């Protein structure tokens, strides 16, 4: 456990350019994936869910034994040859399938339902209905989801910038915002890279990360704010290092406390909750990392340009 003890005395700020390179590489890989997958347009480099495209998605359970190929044949027989058929986790004592097609009208949906029911018998539910779940999204809806998401992210970042500037100072705010962008790009990079489906819930999760990933950053910044006047003769980077050492246990514990429920959602939740949890998992982990390896180094970099701290750093031989 000797190596573990070392994290409480490691010179984090002395290696800031190493962290910047690491984060830069990870983000660059993500951006590259977005460009390549999107064919030059990074906004298209994702596997968008139904809310972002227009179309109809049906999830239904059949009583009679059914195969993906068999269901595809019935669906194609209704004129939807390019529908995507997927078998999903079974329920209701039958086999459950997800069928994604172009947008179907109410009559078309009904015709498809009848055809499938004749062939495979759709499972009944306890309340007297049938296990037939359908989600239809028009093009207008998806456009609005995207614009409202951009708007929300922009406004959230501006509010965060203002709040941290007021409570700390603008240099802290810059550190925090750079860390925010880091987390944002890590999450979307991983979504592009893994090809996971992006839904409105993903967007909500990303927005939550914007607020929540600052938890650890605030913990460190708060300690820096407190230590600064007490350690005014020490180079800024050393003071930040000390602040990180002092708050490391609580940063790790708060991250763990958040990751526990998130991992539980990922393990036990249904598909919607899993989507949510995956984005939160990546975001919370990235947020914990960025508070020490992005936000604090950026703050130190800005502070060390101040004449007073530059002198101290020169004296300690930390910068040239």
């Amino acid at each position: 456990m000797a190596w573990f003890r070392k994290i409480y005395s490691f010179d984090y700020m002395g290696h800031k350019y190493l962290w910047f390179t690491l984060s830069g590489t990870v983000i660059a890989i993500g951006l590259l994936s977005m460009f390549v997958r999107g064919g030059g347009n990074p906004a298209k480099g994702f596997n968008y869910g139904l809310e972002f495209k227009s179309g109809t998605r049906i999830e239904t359970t059949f009583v009679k034994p059914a195969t993906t190929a068999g269901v595809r044949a019935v669906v194609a027989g209704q004129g939807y040859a390019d529908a995507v058929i997927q078998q999903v986790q079974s329920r209701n004592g039958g086999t459950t399938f997800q069928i994604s097609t172009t947008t179907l009208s109410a009559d078309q949906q009904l015709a498809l339902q009848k055809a499938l029911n004749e062939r495979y018998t759709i499972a009944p539910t306890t309340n007297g209905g049938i296990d037939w779940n359908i989600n239809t999204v028009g093009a207008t809806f998806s456009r609005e989801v995207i614009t409202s998401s951009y708007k929300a992210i922009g406004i959230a970042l501006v509010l965060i910038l203002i709040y941290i500037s007021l409570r700390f100072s603008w240099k802290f705010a810059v550190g925090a915002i750079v860390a925010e962008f880091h987390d944002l790009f890590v999450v979307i990079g991983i979504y592009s890279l893994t090809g996971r489906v992006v839904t409105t819930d993903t967007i909500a999760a990303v927005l939550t990360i914007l607020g929540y990933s600052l938890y650890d950053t605030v913990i460190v910044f708060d300690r820096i704010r407190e230590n600064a006047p007490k350690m005014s003769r020490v180079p800024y980077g050393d003071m930040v290092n000390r602040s990180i050492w002092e708050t490391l246990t609580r940063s790790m514990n708060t991250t763990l406390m958040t990751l526990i429920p998130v991992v539980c959602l990922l393990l036990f939740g249904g598909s919607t909750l899993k989507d949510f949890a995956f984005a939160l998992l990546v975001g919370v982990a990235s947020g914990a990392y960025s508070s020490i390896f992005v936000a604090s180094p950026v703050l130190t970099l800005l502070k060390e340009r101040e004449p007073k701290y530059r002198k101290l750093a020169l004296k300690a031989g930390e910068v040239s």
Partner: protein
Amino acid sequence: MKHHKQRNILILLVVAALLVVSAFYIYPFGKKTHLGLDLQGGLEIVYKAALPNGTVPSRDQLDQTIGIINRRVNGLGVSEAAVQVQGADQISVALPGIKNVDQAVRTVGQTAQLQFFNDGKQRVAGPEDSLAAAVKTAETAPLIPLPKGAKTELDKLAKGETSTEYLTVVAQPGKYGNNTTPLYFIYTLPPAMTGSAIAKSSQNFDQRSRPNVLIDFTSKGGKQFGQVTRDLATTGQITGVNQSFAIVLDNQMESDPIVDYKQNPDGIQGTSAEITGNFTIQEAKDLALVINTGALPVTLHQIESQEVSATLGKDSLHQALIAGIAGLGLILLYMIFYYRFLGLVADIALIIYGVLLFGLFNAIPVTLTLPGIAGMILTIGVAADANVVIFERIKEEVRRGRTVRSAVNSGYARGFRTILDANVLTLLTAAVIFEFASAQPKGFAFTLILGVLVSMFTAVVATRALLGLLSDFSFFNRPAFMGVKAADIHALADDGDAGRRPRRRPVAPGDGRPAAASDIAGVTSTTSPSRPARPAKRRTSTARKKKK
């Protein structure tokens, strides 16, 4: 200290009272919770509303539309339907637990055209048993003279078109006795009045307690209706036969009431009218609904719909509950393992948090959706975070040699600032999501906001009161209780001073505060009296909050 004790007792009493109130809202379990349709099954439709000319409707027009859809939905017998404005021009209709989805889609989504025709002046033909017969009558023996060129229009009607430039076909579903075949009419366009003349319609009872239908007109609509009925009454006086007018919805005759010329020789003036007849209450309600329907000020275009079966909903709820219980359980265990006695206090606070949040959800009531549950589960972590921040601070103070009691006090005082900043940032983003995101993330954001607020209360205020009371007992003042080893108290106290300003070691042990030293009667055995204490001078500098 006395004052603090009273305050702490008061806070805990408030917590106890809130728990009782919450329990009232929670019990019987599951019965008082509003489940969203993703959890109980149902239908959700999102419409984009537009004015006939394609422009965005005003907020008033949207509200009016929502009122009408609400009335339509109530007719479907859905108990927890929710019709809401979403964004600038969208209306979402959620019908949890609905069984007959097809009927619901039709009833809610129809963009009906309500028309009124003056039977005496506008009926060209009818009632006839078939469309062909009606067209034939119109060609050979029309009830009113037809303009030139009517022949080509009648041909179109015969081929199945419902409306042409001057003429329209109206069918009346057969409902008289055993007659099940519909009857057909042909009327001239434009209608005498349209749905825009109507402000509101409702089912009521006449003086003899028979069900009737009340219609409130707009002021312009009232004048139009006065004109139409005056015409009918005048004709009635001349012919001695009561004249009727037709209420038509989407080419379907819904009612064909007469104007009694003896009762109303000048027609029906004013801003309201009543339709009487041999209605059952249901028929009167239906007719009122139809009239309201036609008065829809906007056209609705369906842009999203989601139908969830009861099975899928139940599965999702089940999975979410397992995830929530597992998450809470693991956090409870970890807190006890890591923070020992303090962890136990935090666990009590977490359980209180769970009960209060759930009670609050039922009390408001918040409709619980999957994203909402995700938000709730996430806030368990946020609530625990607050305690982690405070407890780490307390441990730190104890390691520096403070008594447990004074460490608790300063741990809360300093930890609170951090928690406040962190939570304000979470609240800010949650508020942004709530304001700008679409429906599902909204539920998530709302739970997050409630959760963060409630957790500030339970994790900070309630645990502080509890610890404050407990610290009066001597057993409490043992650092081991919170997982601090006696050895660390020395080691870290020294370590914590390294790299700081040259320090002066004072001779006096303790906290630099005599009062604190006297608090700890039996405790000093764990903290050696000869340990280096923090000089009073540094203490004042730590109290400075602002950085330079």
